[in-house]
């Protein structure tokens, strides 16, 4: 990658953005669930050039012990960027920015989880940014909530997130790196889709009240779209994992097997 230069305009005379998108258009999003073997749950997201992997371990025993919460599980998010994820090498030491984003992601995901089901335990979420091109915290939330679901952690809903903002006076969604840097502001947001409750809302730059409200409306509808993609990715992963190789035909037997799947967990074999 050559050194960055400021683009001449963020919105072209035709009303399109630097990468040719319309103002309310998202970058192409590709979600994959179960990308890591070792983790209890994992997911990856490609959103334009941004590429992030999220891994979930747990619920498991919490170390160090003094962090224990007696009424619920501790949600520990670790957001890290790879040294090669940005054009100028990122120093490998944990930065202030990484710590902040870790916290912000934990706060965004927390309300969606039934943490009270696992008192004293920890749920570890590791977010690794492989390639950064703007919107990493939102992409990380999208991937992490899929990874949590993949780990079998009970949750109210998946959490979609997107950034909205302003460039050359136009309100836009899903900012790329250039728009983030040279635009007039950005607002990352995450919602719980059923209730439209906000779990993440940050702002950088100046917005009028009207702009802010309009931005948030755009964000909410984009989040709902991303939520559909998330549900789809999750179902795809599990339907593929449950291949019914042709012996699906006898439905009676099917029911029998189901019973045994479900109810008999309390029965143990007698030696």
């Amino acid at each position: 990658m050559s050194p960055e230069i400021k683009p001449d305009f963020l919105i072209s005379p035709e009303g399109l953005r630097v990468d040719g998108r319309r103002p309310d258009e998202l970058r192409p999003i590709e979600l994959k669930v179960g990308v890591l073997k070792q983790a209890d749950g994992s997911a990856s997201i490609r959103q334009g050039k941004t590429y992030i992997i999220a891994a979930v371990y747990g619920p498991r025993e919490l170390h160090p012990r003094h962090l224990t919460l007696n009424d619920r599980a501790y949600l520990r998010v670790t957001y890290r960027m790879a040294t090669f994820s940005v054009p100028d090498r990122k120093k490998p030491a944990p930065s202030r920015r990484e710590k902040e984003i870790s916290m912000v992601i934990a706060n965004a995901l927390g309300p969606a989880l039934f943490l009270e089901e696992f008192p004293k335990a920890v749920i570890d979420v590791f977010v690794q940014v492989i390639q950064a091109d703007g919107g990493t915290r939102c992409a990380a939330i999208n991937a992490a909530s899929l990874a949590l679901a993949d780990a079998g952690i009970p949750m109210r809903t998946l959490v979609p997130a997107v950034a909205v903002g302003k460039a050359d006076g136009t309100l836009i969604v899903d900012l790329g790196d250039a728009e983030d840097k040279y635009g007039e502001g950005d607002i990352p947001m995450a919602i719980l889709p059923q209730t439209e409750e906000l779990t993440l809302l940050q702002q950088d730059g100046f917005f009028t009240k009207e702009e802010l409200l309009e931005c948030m409306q755009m964000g909410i509808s984009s989040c709902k779209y991303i939520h559909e993609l998330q549900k789809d990715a999750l179902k795809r992963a599990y339907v593929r994992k449950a291949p019914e190789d042709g012996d699906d035909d006898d439905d009676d037997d099917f029911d029998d097997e189901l019973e045994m799947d479900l109810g008999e967990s309390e029965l143990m074999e007698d030696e």
Partner: protein
Amino acid sequence: MAVYFQKREVVVPGQLLAEGRYRASYGTYYESDKVYSSLVGLAELRGNTVKVVALEGAYIPKEGDLVIGIITMVAGNNWKLDIGGPYGASLHANNALRRPYADDISEYMDIGDVISAEVQAFDRVSGPFLTMKGRGLQVLEGGMILEVSPAKIPRIIGRRGSMINMINDLLRIDSMVGQNGRIWIKADDVEIVRLAIKAFKTIEEQAHTSNLTDRINTMLTEEMNKIRGSKTTQSSDTKPKSTVEDEAVAEGASSSETEDNTSDAEEDESELDIEVEIENIEDASDAEEDQDKTEEVNE
């Protein structure tokens, strides 16, 4: 009153499952007259209770569970055990030993020992506490431990133990399945252990497919024949118990397999096999009695 899913449908967290007078059970939550899924899993309706069967998840202890634990610490009159999942368990000497017992309880069981035990109590504030007072709860000596996903354990046990009993009978192994996703396997023969592992792994992988018990049965019978085929040329002492009929059926099934991927010498052998088999059925029944005896001793 409406239900928004098909039987055995894969559902995702937050998906609306039912509306109206339905009861939320495992894997679901209830909010303003609606039942939503809280897990990725298979949705199921029983009566008016909605339930989601998890496909993944760590082991969360439940009272009455049979678990396989590894002792990690001896603390006074307690053993601390790793039973997988987020919670370490403890076992008090009173729940394991007959009184009087020595002061130093590590004489009886020490760090690294593997035991089967039952969860006696577990709630949000205390526990889990284990007990070894019960049938078949003992120190497990020899053998190996296989770890599988705890969510798949019901399938490995099968309805009223159908799956695990079938595997035990076919392979003639000692095994014990803990709800915490650990399976203890003991067999005389490495080949058999490998086969058992293969069987358990297959079940874990294909847990939500139908006819699994039959498929595993076929697979095991075939494999056992192969193992026995190679054994009879050298020695013929380790024989799984099986009837002559079974043998014939299995032979028919396996022959098509063997033609494909093994040399033609195999076929001649398999014919020989049946003869040797008939002779050995007596031996097998003897061995069975032996096993019964050992079980009594264990208790």
